């Protein structure tokens, strides 16, 4: 606390009452009593559900109606329990995958970094000529390094990544994959990019056109295939509706 000291003629140096605002740091002892419970929540274990909670979920699910969906993308066929999940799944699996090697990344940025570094000969050409092309993986850090190794070193030194971290793992391709790659290289050298894009686009087109044929239900009206920002996927494409069957198998949840 700042003390105001006034010197009067009589030499009195009394620190008079001076009204001042008092501010405290978040970890100050002043706040300790109110923070006790909060400190206990600093870490939280994720426990399994109790039987009671499972029951609640089973009952809760009924409110959504049966909205299980099988993803129709070729090679996928994933089972999603709701349309929200379908959208999640679609975004995760079918939107940020490398069209060349089908690696999937959790952000578009990482995908694009991967594509440049792994599949772009122009990128490699610039690297060979000494340009700093390898971007730092941490969003917001605009550092560029000259080699994969030096970028790795930058991550370890500047961003405290563990030395064991590996951005690009050379996967051993399966036989099927290797054959695919060879076939592609032989037949579709320059058409690669546009072909993949075309296929991707066609998938979207098919789904979207299925959507446009559908019947409205009593749910809200926004479609957001392939977009992240809204959770408005509510229309069930008729093609997908066909797949839904009340599955009588015992593993199925009670509805």
């Amino acid at each position, binding site marked *: 606390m700042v003390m105001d000291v*006034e010197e009067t003629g009589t030499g009195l140096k009394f620190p008079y*009452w001076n009204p001042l605002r008092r501010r405290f740091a978040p970890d100050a002892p002043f706040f300790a009593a109110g923070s006790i419970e909060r400190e206990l929540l600093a*870490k939280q274990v*994720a426990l399994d559900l109790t039987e009671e909670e499972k029951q609640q979920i089973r009952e809760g699910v009924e409110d959504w109606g049966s909205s299980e969906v099988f993803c129709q993308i070729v090679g996928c066929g994933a089972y999603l329990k709701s349309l929200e999940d379908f959208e999640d799944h679609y975004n995760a699996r079918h939107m940020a995958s490398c069209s060349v090697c089908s690696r999937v990344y959790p*952000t578009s940025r990482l995908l694009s970094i991967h594509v440049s570094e792994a599949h772009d000969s122009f990128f490699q050409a610039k690297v060979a000529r000494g340009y700093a092309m390898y971007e730092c993986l941490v969003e917001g850090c605009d550092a560029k390094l000259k080699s994969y190794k030096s970028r790795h070193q930058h991550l370890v030194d500047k961003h405290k990544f563990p030395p064991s971290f590996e951005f690009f793992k050379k996967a051993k391709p399966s036989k099927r994959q290797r054959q695919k790659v060879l076939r592609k290289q032989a037949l579709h050298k320059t058409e690669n990019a546009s072909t993949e894009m075309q296929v991707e686009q066609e998938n979207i087109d098919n789904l979207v056109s299925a959507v446009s044929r559908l019947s409205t239900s009593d749910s809200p009206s926004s479609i957001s295939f392939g977009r992240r920002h809204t959770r408005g996927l509510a229309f069930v494409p008729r093609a997908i509706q066909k797949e839904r069957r009340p599955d009588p198998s015992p593993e199925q949840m009670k509805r």
Partner: protein
Amino acid sequence: MSDETSTPQKRGPIKSPVGSVAVQRRREHAVMVGKERREALMRTKRLCRVGVSSENADVPVEDDMMMDEEQSVLEDQTLKAVEELKHAIGYQGKGAMQKRVGALRELRRLLSKSEYPPVEAALKAGVMPTLVQFLSFGSPDEQLLEAAWCLTNIAAGKPEETKALLPALPLIIAHMGEKSSLPVAEQCAWALGNVAGEGEEMRNVLLSQGALQPLARMMLPNKGSTVRTAAWALSNLIKGPDPKAATDLIRIDGVLDAILRHLKRGDEELATEVAWVVVYLTALSNFATSMLAKSDLLQIIVDRLASSNSLQLLIPLLRGLGNLVAGDSYITNNVLVAGREITVNVIQALIKCLKSEHRVLKKESAWVLSNIAAGSVEHKKIIHSSEAVSLLMRLLSTGPFDIRKEVAYVLGNLCVAPAEGSGRPNLIVEHLVSLVGGGCLVGFIDLVRSADTEAARLGLQFLELVLRGMPNGEGQKLVEAEDGIDAMERFQFHENEDLRNMANELVDKYFGEDYGLDS
């Protein structure tokens, strides 16, 4: 798992998968997976009092502590599960994915059974590098979710266990990206929250690895448990003591708006987490405080304070309010102008907290009032003429010590005008007379007698006001009547020089040789 095809021809209309055997099998498997996942996706976050260290004698030894036998059985099972997991990495071919997820799930179950999971055993068995492998880009969602869940619980315990997550951190952060499925992202946020909750060192690692941005983005949507988990994790991540993270956070697009929105319309659980984010933003970062002060935050906090009865929510709301008032003069100068409805509302909300049974609410609302009372004369008048004064007077005589101190600050601030220049601040005699008339002198003299230096100082300062400011020399008589002289004389040979000088000066000046001669 992508849409990559080897033939670029036009695809036919979407085919039905019903009928083929492989598809049937896949379907059954998907049903089973879907069931587990439904539960995993909807599970509730349960409180775990793991923060208390094992040395702390206060740890309740109840039935939730497992018996030694059970614990060692659990540990054996864990060792087995980890070995199984290590083998599962190498599986190829058909059914490999299910086997991997199955092995992960087995470990996850062992780590989720009780509030004291067998983490040490798992780490000793070398589980970490394997779990990191399972987090590779492109892994199926089930795998990522289970791996992140295991990591969450490993990080929920002792410091060295949490720190064991270091190699996994960049991947955990990456999987919170905008392309990740929501349950995976949420589980990663949860794990990250546990790591951030460990301490400053871990926070710095996470921040330097770029954790703030993706986590902040997860707080932007309107609903879902992910928003709440993200807010909780953020509150851990920015809690400092370095203010940089707090400043960075408020600068991210959409964050300020999301904070206001959630505090205004979120349910109590979400609002609680966001309120804590506000607490740290306002306590650490001047920039953030200034931005928040100029927004609608004050009104929103006040409305929520008035309408809620959840102690969990009231505490951070009140503290955020207190930090705003304490941290930025904009509030007292420009927002809490006399006559405005907001000013009335704030005082009302503080009065509600003063009336509460909860010690923390009483203490911290008194603190906020003391800061408002440190403002303009108008502010002092508003408080002085409100219900607050009678509540404060009562607390001064009957409340616990720490509350009495805060009350002292309020009352004293009410009696002194803001200092002009470097001169001695002027008294507001009217307030002094009324408060002394209400009987507060006893309380202040008690503070003088207390062992606490700060409290004694406050008491002496207030006595000086009384002695100087009460009209007609009444002050001396009143102080004497309440044994004030005695209380001051105790400091004559006190070890604290400051207090000694103060007390002696007062006694010399007001109770010197001339005292009592003309009465």
